[in-house]
């Protein structure tokens, strides 16, 4: 057993390499969130900021999401209204997901100002939740003897952009783009927008879903919000994004969130997703992001072929 200090999706990638190397036939990957033990996350995020250049400003770390959202809206032409559509879609999807936190808790809190760091509002932030998730990986031979409907790992990728606020790429999610390129190369995917039928991707903040969909090549640059408006990403749309409800709908379980995305994808590929099942899914992609203030993410491509 070992700990990978990252989202569970990274652990899945490590387990995948252990199996490819020939070290093990079966590996379990676990991630959990017990965020309710933490009285307030703000001081924890503060500790993640650069101690010399950023922390002395005394600002809540969510200002980084504010900076990024502002830059994203400026560059893409998307609006706060589009971000609200992401929230509405994901909350609606979560209503048919029995693992989601209760809708009563999904409603944004009415106390306090709605804007937390312009243009970011409370509504844009996924609510925190506790939970635990396990994925079991097996080498092909073992997988076929252990179960009738294995879902195959076609590719994994993970990457980091420049970490500092000053030198990172603010115009796009470069980490997600680099990670997906690796995963697509392994999975022999050349045109993700046409070869992928479903995406479960990080939506820690509403704008992140749009930014991430773009980075994964699921939409042409600056057209993602138009596709959202056209219903392309809805359950029943051409390319459903977060039919599970995502973190906004299900609850944000910190670094378990990415593994939850993977599990939701597995369910879809097995036809086990119940009320939010999407039809005719053969290949799907999942993306995890490590949250503010990081520039790191991991991608997994799965198929049922």
């Amino acid at each position, binding site marked *: 057993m070992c700990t990978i200090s990252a989202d569970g999706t990274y652990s899945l990638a490590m387990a995948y390499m252990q199996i490819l190397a020939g070290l093990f036939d079966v590996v379990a990957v676990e991630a959990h969130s*017990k965020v309710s*033990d933490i*009285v307030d996350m703000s*001081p924890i995020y503060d*500790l993640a900021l650069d*101690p*010399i250049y950023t*922390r002395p400003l005394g600002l809540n770390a969510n200002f980084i999401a504010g900076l990024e959202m502002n830059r994203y809206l400026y560059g893409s032409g998307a609006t706060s209204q589009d971000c609200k559509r992401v929230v509405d879609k994901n909350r609606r999807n979560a209503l048919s997901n029995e693992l989601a936190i209760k809708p009563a808790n999904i409603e944004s809190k009415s106390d306090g100002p709605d804007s937390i760091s312009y243009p970011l509002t409370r509504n844009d932030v996924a609510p925190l939740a506790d939970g635990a998730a396990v994925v079991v990986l097996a080498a092909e031979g073992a997988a076929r003897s252990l179960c009738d409907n294995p879902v195959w790992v076609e590719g994994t990728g993970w990457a980091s952009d420049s970490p500092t606020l000053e030198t990172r790429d603010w115009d796009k999610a470069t980490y997600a783009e680099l990670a997906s390129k690796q995963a697509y190369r392994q999975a022999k995917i050349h045109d993700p927008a046409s070869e992928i039928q479903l995406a479960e991707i990080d939506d820690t903040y509403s704008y992140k879903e749009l930014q991430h969909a773009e980075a994964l090549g699921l939409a042409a640059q600056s057209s993602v919000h138009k596709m959202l408006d056209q219903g392309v990403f809805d359950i029943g749309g051409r390319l459903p994004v977060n039919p599970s409800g995502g973190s906004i709908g299900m609850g944000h379980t910190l670094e378990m969130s990415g593994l939850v995305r993977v599990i939701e994808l597995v369910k879809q590929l097995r036809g086990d997703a119940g009320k939010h099942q999407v039809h005719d899914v053969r290949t799907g992609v999942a993306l995890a992001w490590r949250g503010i203030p990081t520039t790191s993410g991991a991608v997994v491509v799965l198929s049922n072929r």
Partner: protein
Amino acid sequence: MERQKILTVAYQPKAKYAWATGIAISRFLKGLKAGEIMGTRCEHCGRIAVPPRIFCEWCFKKSDSWVKLPDTGTVNTFSVSYITADTTRVKTPIIPAVIGIDSTTNAGFLHLIGEVKPDDVRIDMRVKAVWLDQPQRKGSITDIKYFAPLR
């Protein structure tokens, strides 16, 4: 900062936690308040464990049968410590020990030894819990003041 040769930034982290005690340890702590040491028994392998847990990590099965254990045991190992948690020096030593609790399967927990001179503590010494008076107990490991030699 002014007098230092090298520039530094001082920082006081303010993270606060409220750790849920969980199912097994909640019951253990309630037991301590009542003056009892509670353990769990794995129905699969028969092991009786303390601190109690809701699963047996050997069998990886649920372990939900509870056993009231005696408050006597054996010193598995001990130390004579002249430092506190923040490495402050103390003249009168603290004697931490792992106390193997009677009736368990080689299980025990960390506690302190009292009512004995440091030089007289021995591995394998028999000990018994010395409890706070009932009204002072609050459902904490410190409801046991320490373990003292069994006379």
